């Protein structure tokens, strides 16, 4: 399984080219019919030959314990989507790469069944024969009736374009994590309530059995038991055992850390909050359900909603029962939420990868234009940032820093780096998540302290659970968790301060992690969380570990003071590293050359993990692992100070090493992302629906604008009016027509601030001066009545402030325009056909305009004298010169730039001050009447 050839190789660039892969497909609008004589791959436009489907889709499949891998549903839910593509076969493929050898039932040394709190795994795989590539997100849901209580599922994003999967991996991972988290939340809720019902049943059964036993005892006073009585007693005992087990399960599932679950955000329409799921009623229609108890007792339960039922011990063939559907497994609400999110994902990643990438880069760049971007950019794009901030704000400083940094820091390197890192890793790479860091950290921040402990216990248990072989690992895990706990406490005060405990924790966790990352590479189930009261069950382990680690601790403190100790410490960690490597079963299948450097790497990586208590590093997620790889361990303190900005420096690495590291780095970042994502929202990110609405709006506006410029010969002066801040009134009787014109023209209206666009689509009351101050584009109703006369009167009165576009008589009254800018913006002979294309064209030119305005507004010597003797006139003439010669503006174009610059100035000055009315600027210029 692990060495499955289908798992897509992370190849380096050179090797990649050799392999003559299929070229990425273009978005439909660009694609042209295939050149009939072209060989496969000869032209860059050719579509992937092998694929049997055309569009990307999302597939959800399950590894059913009865029938094996089976596809459940596709998004979009349409038979056409997959075409002739064999979903069953592909399900088998994607399910087969799941590493989760679900750990079932009673862990050694524990008498009760344990739940696996399994983390999701993310894998990229490809089937070049089928021409299908997929990002596969594995997750497990709990089902009381399932084997080991778990049902493995996976969600796969399937595309014909390998590049797309590779380059969008991070984004896909974030989005799918959100969806998965949502699904799992619903599942936990459903599972808990199912457990409760089960408990009630058991309780009832016990009472019944108890009574029966009592009766038999009384009936039978001979002093020795009949077979029947013994049977009853056994039954009773098993029921009692079952009760305890179920109670334990319930405790486990309930105490699952509900991180980042902001209930108000999450399900606004649901009165009960997810935290007291105990009381939550599940709308799930649980009719007859079979129960498969891992404790060998097969109990049969018939559970109508509330009345407890008698449970009879009865062994049922597990193939007889009907497994719950996915929908039944989760709360309906969460299920639909998840579907929505998946639909959203499908929409988001629709189209060609270059388009997606460009969009991402563009958005990121726009965010950097903090001074000018408010002018013409979409609110949503900018809002996203705010929303993001808000999100992360709720979950504490760690995420906060990272999220914001990620957004703010240069995005282009990001793309490049991730590209690099993907390509460079040849080996099949399950991208595994190291959740330890985040796991331990997030709850600290977001959850009340009380939660912490529990959570951490799970955490430690998780590690134990994940390692099915080797005691040392378990020990390590335990140790780590203790440390984490300590850390969480110390973090409150000063995370950087190296208290002995923390230091010890570093050393230990380092080792632990190295273990973990090996597992990752070897596709071992790594992050299953087994709740456990570790102090009770593994006291010896703790002691052992802490003693064993003494040495490491001492050494570990010193490096921070003395760099010479680093080597020593590294050696030490080397030893430590050797110690836990026992999961031979996993490693064995790996190619040896792969393992070797990796071990080295992982030990380094673990140092990174020593930094558990510090916030995620600011520069970028990707750099997190990276950094640690190169800075010595002693830099912990520095790192935790957050002074980290590591740039990818190829000189540091041999290419091979680099590839390893980037791989590792990548896995790390992924894990980080996933956890971050899960922390901040299970709800669909609000930006997405918005952006989609905007997409439509843009298209429509662009289309209307195209029509406008083709239809009206006086489009130029009208647009000039808008760009120069003169309010344009669209006057007409027909509301739809006016609104359409307003929509078309609104793409040319500069925003006056970060608030809504100053566009009013439809007004029926007479206007006054305040309206012109507030709105720059107004659709006004023409009324044929005395009131209408009044309105026209007011228009006449204020004619100096406004341009009037009469939609009924097709006239425009506005100042003359003779510049060159608007003709470029709105050429009526333009070849652009599509609305969205035209919208982009407009954005393009407006962005150029913005940069000119920025230059003009922020050029010091254009506004202030160079020396004291300089007169205002000479500055003014310099200003004009700059506008005309340097910026190449002609005639009225000057006014456009001046107006935009004025807006920029205002925005910059008033950034902090809000609520001040924008002033109305105007010129005393004659207006002319244009007619068609």
């Amino acid at each position, binding site marked *: 399984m692990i060495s499955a050839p289908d798992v897509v190789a992370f190849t380096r660039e050179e090797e990649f080219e050799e392999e003559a892969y299929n070229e990425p497909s273009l978005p439909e609008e660009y694609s042209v019919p295939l050149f009939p004589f072209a060989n496969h791959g000869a032209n860059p436009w050719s579509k992937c030959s092998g694929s049997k489907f055309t569009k990307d889709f999302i597939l959800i499949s399950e590894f059913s314990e009865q029938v094996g891998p089976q596809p459940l549903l596709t998004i979009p839910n349409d038979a056409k989507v997959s075409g002739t593509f064999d979903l069953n076969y592909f399900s088998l493929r994607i399910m087969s790469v799941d590493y989760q050898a679900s750990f079932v039932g009673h862990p050694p040394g524990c008498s009760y069944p344990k739940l696996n709190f399994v983390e999701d795994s993310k894998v990229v795989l490809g089937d070049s024969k089928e021409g299908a590539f997929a990002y596969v997100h594995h997750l497990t849901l709990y089902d009381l009736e399932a084997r080991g209580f778990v049902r493995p599922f996976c969600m796969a994003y399937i595309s014909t374009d390998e590049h797309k999967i590779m380059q969008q991996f991070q984004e896909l991972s974030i989005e799918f994590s959100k969806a998965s988290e949502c699904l799992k939340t619903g599942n936990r809720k459903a599972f808990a309530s199912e457990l409760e019902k089960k408990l009630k049943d058991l309780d009832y059964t016990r009472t019944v059995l108890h009574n029966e036993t009592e009766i038999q005892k009384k009936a039978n006073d001979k002093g020795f038991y009949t077979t029947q009585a013994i049977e009853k007693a056994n039954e009773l005992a098993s029921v009692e055992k079952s009760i305890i087990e179920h109670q334990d399960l319930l405790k486990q599932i309930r105490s699952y850390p509900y991180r980042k679950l902001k209930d108000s955000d999450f399900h606004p329409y649901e009165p009960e909050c997810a935290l007291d799921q105990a009381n939550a009623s599940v709308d799930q229609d649980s009719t007859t359900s079979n129960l498969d108890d891992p404790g060998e007792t097969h109990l049969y339960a018939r559970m109508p909603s509330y009345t407890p039922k008698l449970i009879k011990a009865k062994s049922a063939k597990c193939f007889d029962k009907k497994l719950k559907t996915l929908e039944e497994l989760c709360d309906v609400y969460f299920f639909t939420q998840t579907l929505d999110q998946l639909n959203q994902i499908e929409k988001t990643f629709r189209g060609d990868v270059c388009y997606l990438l460009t969009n991402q880069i563009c958005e990121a760049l726009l965010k950097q234009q903090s001074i000018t971007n408010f002018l013409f950019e979409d609110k949503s794009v900018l809002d996203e940032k705010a929303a993001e901030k808000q999100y992360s704000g709720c979950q504490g400083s760690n995420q906060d820093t990272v999220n914001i940094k990620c957004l703010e820091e240069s995005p282009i390197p990001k793309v490049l780096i991730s590209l690099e890192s993907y390509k460079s890793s040849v080996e099949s790479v399950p991208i595994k998540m190291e959740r330890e860091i985040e796991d331990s950290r997030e709850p600290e921040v977001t959850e009340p302290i009380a939660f912490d402990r529990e959570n951490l216990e799970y955490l430690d248990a998780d590690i134990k659970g994940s390692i099915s072989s080797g005691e040392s690992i378990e020990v390590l895990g335990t140790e780590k968790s203790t440390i984490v706990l300590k850390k969480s406490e110390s973090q409150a005060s000063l995370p950087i301060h190296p208290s002995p405990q923390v230091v010890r924790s570093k050393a230990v966790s380092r080792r632990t992690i190295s273990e973990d990352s090996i597992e990752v590479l070897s596709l071992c189930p790594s992050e299953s969380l087994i709740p456990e009261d570790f102090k009770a069950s593994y006291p010896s382990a703790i002691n052992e570990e802490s003693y064993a680690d003494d040495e490491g601790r001492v050494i570990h403190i010193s490096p921070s003071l003395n760099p010479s100790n680093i080597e020593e410490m590294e050696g030490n960690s080397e030893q430590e590293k050797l110690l836990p490597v026992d999961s031979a079963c996993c490693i064995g299948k790996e190619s040896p050359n792969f393992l070797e450097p990796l071990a080295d790497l992982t030990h380094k990586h673990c140092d990174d993990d020593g930094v558990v208590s510090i916030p995620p590093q600011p520069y970028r997620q990707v750099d997190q692992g990276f950094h640690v790889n190169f800075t010595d361990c002693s830099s912990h303190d520095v790192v935790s100070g957050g002074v980290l900005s590591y740039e990818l420096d190829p000189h540091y690495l041999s290419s091979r090493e680099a590839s390893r590291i980037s791989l590792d780095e990548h896995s790390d970042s992924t894990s980080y992302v996933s956890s971050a994502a899960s922390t901040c929202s299970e709800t669909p990110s609000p930006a997405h629906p918005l952006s989609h609405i905007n997409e439509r709006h843009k298209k429509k506006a662009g289309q209307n604008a195209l029509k406008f410029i083709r239809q009206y010969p006086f489009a130029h002066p009208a647009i000039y009016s808008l760009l120069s801040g003169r309010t344009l009134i669209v006057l007409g009787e027909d509301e739809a027509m006016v609104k359409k014109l307003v929509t078309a023209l609104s793409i040319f209206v500069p925003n006056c601030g970060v608030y809504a666009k100053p566009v009013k689509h439809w007004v029926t009351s007479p206007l*006054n001066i*305040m309206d012109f101050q507030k709105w720059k584009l107004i659709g006004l109703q023409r009324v044929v009545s005395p009131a209408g006369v009044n309105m026209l*009167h007011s228009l006449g009165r204020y004619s100096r402030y406004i341009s009037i576009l009469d939609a009924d008589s097709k006239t425009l009254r506005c100042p003359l325009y003779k510049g060159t800018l608007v003709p470029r913006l709105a050429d009526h002979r333009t070849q652009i056909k599509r609305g969205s294309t035209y919208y982009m064209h407009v954005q393009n030119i407006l962005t150029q305009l913005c940069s000119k305005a920025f230059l003009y507004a922020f050029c*010091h010597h254009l506004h202030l004298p160079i020396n004291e003797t300089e007169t205002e006139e000479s500055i003014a003439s310099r200003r004009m010169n700059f506008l005309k010669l340097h910026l190449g503006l002609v005639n009225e174009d000057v006014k456009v730039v001046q107006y935009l610059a004025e807006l920029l100035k205002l925005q910059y*000055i008033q950034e902090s001050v809000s609520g001040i009315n924008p*002033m109305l600027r*105007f010129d*005393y210029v004659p207006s002319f009447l244009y007619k068609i």
Partner: protein
Amino acid sequence: MLRWLMGGGREPQGLSEKSSMQSLGEEQIQNPYTELLVLKGHHDIVRFLVQIDDCRFASAGDDGVVFLWNAQTGEKLFELHGHTHKITAIAAFPSSGACEEKNHLILTASADRTVIVWDCNSGREVQKVSCFHSTVKCLTVLQRLDVWLSGGSDLCVWNRKLDLLCKTSHITDADISALVELPKNCVAAAVGKELIIFRLVVSTEGSEGWDVLEVKRLADHQDNILSLVSVNDLTFVTGSHVGELIVWDALNWISQVCDCNTWDPSFHTVTQQEIKLSQNQHEVSIQHLTSDAECVFAAVGKGIYVYNLQMKRVIACQRTAHDSIVLHIARLPNRQLVSCSEDGSVRIWELREKQQLPAEPVPTGFLNMWGFGRANKQVSQTAKKMQESTTTYSLELIGDLIGHSSAVQMFLYFSELGLVTCSADHLIILWKDGERESRLRSLTLFQKLEQNDDLQLRF
């Protein structure tokens, strides 16, 4: 402009420029006000504006609320609540000297028969006087004596601490509608058709007390005196509802050389004509007077007249300066005149001096459509007469400010900061020089950049 197309007739031929309402095209090169800021706050007619210092002013009106504003930023500084009725008079009471720190007070009188003293720096009510028998209709501060006067049905004299120093007996005929300070501790009060001169004398008993004596009653006006303004130490001017303008000697209170009946034939005829033409008294009532050293500017009905004290005649006039009654006029330092009117517009005029007969008028734009039949001819004749004799003056419209949708009650000129207008549409508009504002913003921008240390290159 649609308005003209709808309502206006064709322009009558042969009208001289002076008689018809002058109007401008849309290009107003000399009009510096290219930026405006609407200040919202009042919810009734705003009638009064008073300057507090270089950059602050107060506004008051029928809603009984007083607002303090920053004239530069348009920021609302304070909202002063205290009066229950509309405000009838407002006056700034500047600090008396260097002794204490700048302590700006304003006095407001209201129809609720109270006068409140406000502290402009803290926005608090300092004191409230409510012992009036009638509404106080005017307030005057005599800075020299550090007292202030309130005029209603009687005249009261108060000191800074709001002690009533003295008061006159009840004036039976009418209430005091206007007060003006005259030399020698005298005050002229307009009471109906009469002008009463009061003199403040040091009281015999108290050390600080004043007594107020009625010195003279002047009954030269035929109708109610609407405006009263002091020109200089030697003269003051009154204007009445029927258009009488009388220039008085400030020392002996006799009407100067030109008395009411004979003082200027041209002006007089004009007013007579007006009365005949339209029965509307408002057409000739002198709403407001203002003056500089040599001229008196009168807002007469819809027109503006400039009366030269030396030449003792009207040297320039715009008979229909506005579409409706001119409510307030003021002289700007740069030979400009600003007028505001019930028609909701503010106009800026320039008094131009011409040595010769002017070549036929500058093009007036396409809105030159208002005509007044015979009267126009008369005036054009007189105008010609005047032109023949000596240097002529003319009032040229150089700009108009349109923003209010109702009568502009008053305005305040803040030299560099701009012009503040208040109106019956509840709004106050701050008119600013766009160029200057732009420069200022650039300045602030670079200051802020420096402050934020953003001038360093950031990558």
